[in-house]
């Protein structure tokens, strides 16, 4: 049981970090960023290039990946989403744009980095082994701690910084925030860049453990959407709770239900459908938006 809980906690921390970026973008701009998974993959390949091909330390790869993704996010918001939101009142315009960006990034990743699975050397060697009751490699513990530290830093930033307060105001009421002098364009761009940067951070963190390949983008986006459905779209605490719940469900399901075949995600999807029928706004979301 200790092992199952530890696996769930580890999965939950990384999932929560993935969901945070997605929910931040949704809360600020009402945009469902279908390209979130592809951004995660792109960042993994950037980190791989820096660490393996250029031979630089992992921390450099992590920082470069985060910066590249933040710049990419900022540019995508400024030159793609902003004009579309300005010209179109229909929500599906941004959804289609996001889907288009996902396909574009898939093609770009194939062109730049190829189709092969890539990985970087372990950041920390060794395995924590508590009498075979709880086994966890040190690099996973490190990634889990880093993911939790990033989540806490993000919450503190959103709570206490000027930019964080402005973005929360935007998320609550875009018009009211504008009337109070918040530069909507600027903070939307910063928010999108931060969302993309979070995808970049988690992609770079996980490339040292799971590796990265072209096909990971779509499934990652699906899991991120699952998490924000559970927790409530556009709510930061919801994304975190959704991430940990999904991680724990996956860990428990894979261990307890292993003798029944691959039924874990079938049950997760079925449970989610029932849950959404009862509480469509998710655990932390408000029915009115």
């Amino acid at each position: 049981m200790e092992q199952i809980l530890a696996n769930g906690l580890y999965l939950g921390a990384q999932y929560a970090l993935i969901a945070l970026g997605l929910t931040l973008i949704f809360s600020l701009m009402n945009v469902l960023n279908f390209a979130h998974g592809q951004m995660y993959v792109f960042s993994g390949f950037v980190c791989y290039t820096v660490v393996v091909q250029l031979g630089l330390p992992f921390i450099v790869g992590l920082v470069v990946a985060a910066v590249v993704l933040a710049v990419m996010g900022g540019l995508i918001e400024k030159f793609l989403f902003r004009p579309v939101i300005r010209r179109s009142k229909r929500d599906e315009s941004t959804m289609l744009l996001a889907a288009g960006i996902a396909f574009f990034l898939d093609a770009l990743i194939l062109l730049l980095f190829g189709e092969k699975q890539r990985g970087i050397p372990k950041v920390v060697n060794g395995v924590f082994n508590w009498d075979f009751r709880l086994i966890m490699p040190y690099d996973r513990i490190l990634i889990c701690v880093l993911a939790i530290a990033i989540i806490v830093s993000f919450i503190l930033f959103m709570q206490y910084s000027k930019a964080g307060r402005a973005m929360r105001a935007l998320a609550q009421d875009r018009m009211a925030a504008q009337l109070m002098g918040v530069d909507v364009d600027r903070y939307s761009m910063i928010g999108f860049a931060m969302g993309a940067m979070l995808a970049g951070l988690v992609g770079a963190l996980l490339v040292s453990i799971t590796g990265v390949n072209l096909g990971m983008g779509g499934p990652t986006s699906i899991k991120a959407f699952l998490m924000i459905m559970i927790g409530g779209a556009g709510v930061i605490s919801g994304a975190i709770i959704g991430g940990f719940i999904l991680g724990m469900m996956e860990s428990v399901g894979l261990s307890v239900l292993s003798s029944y075949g691959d039924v874990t995600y079938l049950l997760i999807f079925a449970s989610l459908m029932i849950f959404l029928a009862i509480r469509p706004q998710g655990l932390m979301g408000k029915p009115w938006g």
Partner: protein
Amino acid sequence: MEARAAWLNELGGVQIGDTTYDIQIVAFDDQKDPKRAIAGMERMAQEGVHYVVGPNVDDGAAAVRPVAEQQGIMYFPYSFPKELFSPPASNAILGMVANYQSGPAIYAYLKENKGVQKVAFVAANESDPLSQRDSGVEAAKALGLEVVSDKVTYQVDTTDFSPVLLPVLQSRPDLLVLSGVSPANAPQLIRSARELGYEGLISTETGQDASVLAEGAGELANGFISVGGASTPELASDTMREFVDRYTKMFGEYNDESNTKVYALEYIIETLKANPAALTDVEEYKKTIDTFEAPNPFMVGDAKLRYVGRSSFGQKRQVSVPLVVTEYKDGAFETLFVAEVD
């Protein structure tokens, strides 16, 4: 195949009958989608192509069968369902060694040489890996091995395999078989198994990529047993070595499994040379299969190109390539043993 075709064209083409031809490869990416595979096969038929190498997965290979049979196309899938190669089917020729041929050879070797008694299987929840798992389980039981776990599967997009492997390793196998594992998943599965304290053997019946294993699992992948390409340094002729050089120059990075794929083109060309009427009539090709024999340019000695598969399929519908079983060690594959298939 493109590397070999470009090489043959550079040498002046291929003489079939009284005419010398340049080889043109018509490429189509089916993206492992059966619908796209059918569309691809129909496009081949429209373009007058009679010899197709692929598809590479079970679903795709089964889906194109009606088109191939109606349109007079011989195809060389890299997938293993026996019904594609057994009567009444006659248009498909297996382009490599099947898992139900390599699996028993590997298990028998490990039972005899490493004392393996208990085997566990884990597979992705997809048709190819699942069918490979089922035939692997059958082969292991036939050899008298105890199968201690064969129900655990995983999604192909799994990023953390520790929860997947935990119940498998609790069954304490001597050998963990990663049935039909993709090169993308293999390093993570190996790494998770080793990090969870598993010290037994790990094997698969599919081809793997040494550089991907090195990057994804490092030294934890040492000892991993897989099916290699159709060549080893001891088997490779000068032609095979030159093929590897040309392939590397053309595509930047050589994959050991590529030397399996080069055989299909060679078999097609040499069979057409033996019976030029088969250029436009695949029934003529089928007639030539049973008696066909030609020198194998990729192996040293007097090795021959010939069709095999009678014991597995009841007819000759498989190209004869060496079964090379390898063990990964420090970034490269080392030959464990070489066998032949009929």
